[in-house]
């Protein structure tokens, strides 16, 4: 009975859409972070899979269809970018400066914690790559000898945290500029931050999508230096 239900791709597809929709309605009613559609649906789905003893691979039969759309959705960010190109043209020095300083600051914070917790270089490589969008993160982390599953985990944790915390942090620190908010979300929390930025507005979304690329490039450029920095710190 269970197998008939779960062994079709429809199972994972339906489960994802239903859980996400419920989260969406709950979040509209009670806007707590726990009801953020992404967090709510992930917790609900993991709980259900464990409760009914269903393998992740079985869920992925359908989940894969949704996962596959990440690439075309990322490509489609070009549309938002083109529509808001004038902001980029006007403010590119500020944006590049922000992304550059952010990338260096992130690396220094990670180095500090690696020294504090005495983590080895493999773990460092995984943490170093965690603000980049998954596809770039894996290749950067691999090139530094990171642990792939840890990298993916950290990328998702970072993206979730960033997209939830972003609006709160902006309020606390009085960051009101849509370009600053968008770039901060994309640079700190990659495509998951961008999905939040798109909810905040079109300019946010465009700048956030753009900063995924810029941040990715910044980390790719910084990567060869980091092993050196790591050894210097120990």
């Amino acid at each position, binding site marked *: 009975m269970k197998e008939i239900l779960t062994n079709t791709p429809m199972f994972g597809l339906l489960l994802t859409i239903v859980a996400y929709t419920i989260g969406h309605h709950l979040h509209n009613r009670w806007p707590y972070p726990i009801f953020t559609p992404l967090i709510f649906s992930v917790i609900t789905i993991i709980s259900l899979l464990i409760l009914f003893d269903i393998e992740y691979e079985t869920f992925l039969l359908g989940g894969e269809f949704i996962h596959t759309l990440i690439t075309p959705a990322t490509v*489609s960010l070009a549309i938002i970018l083109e529509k808001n190109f004038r902001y980029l043209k006007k403010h590119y020095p500020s944006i590049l400066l922000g992304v550059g300083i952010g990338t260096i600051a992130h690396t220094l914070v990670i180095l500090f*914690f690696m020294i504090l917790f005495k983590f080895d270089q493999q773990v460092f490589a995984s943490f170093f790559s965690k603000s980049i969008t998954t596809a*770039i993160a894996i290749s950067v982390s691999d090139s530094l000898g990171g642990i792939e599953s840890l990298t993916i985990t950290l990328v998702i944790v970072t993206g979730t945290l960033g997209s939830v915390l972003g609006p709160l942090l902006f309020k606390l620190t009085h960051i009101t500029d849509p370009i600053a908010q968008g770039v901060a979300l994309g640079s700190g929390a990659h495509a998951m931050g961008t999905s939040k930025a798109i909810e905040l507005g079109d300019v946010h979304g465009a700048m956030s999508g753009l900063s995924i690329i810029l941040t990715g490039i910044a980390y790719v450029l910084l990567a060869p230096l980091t092993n050196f920095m790591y050894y210097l710190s120990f």
Partner: protein
Amino acid sequence: MKLLQQFGWILFYSVLGELLSYLMPFAVPGSVIGMILLFLSLHFGLLKMEKVEAVGTWLTQNMAILFVPAAVGLMIHFELIASIWWQIAIISLVSTSAVMIIVGKTIEISKKRRHPSSPKETEEA
């Protein structure tokens, strides 16, 4: 049929990106190359906005749900995460918050210096 064609164009750029990514000597994800190519095509008028707009907007507006399956994959890495969970929590919280505040503040300050008189950009509806 129109929506199907739009989806086709977006997939075309996605595949083109993947293909070029494979041919590149260094690692750049196909989705990023595809995005840059689509942007250049739209910007220089090789492809009209109407050819991709509806489907592309639908995809980007519903982006968060696309990460659900990958995030559910955390369940198979429980052991690794459980062994260093509190360090992960602290590091992620501090580093992510720090980056977002630093990036946001840097841009705001730099923008004000470069355009001191211009009023703050307000979003267009």
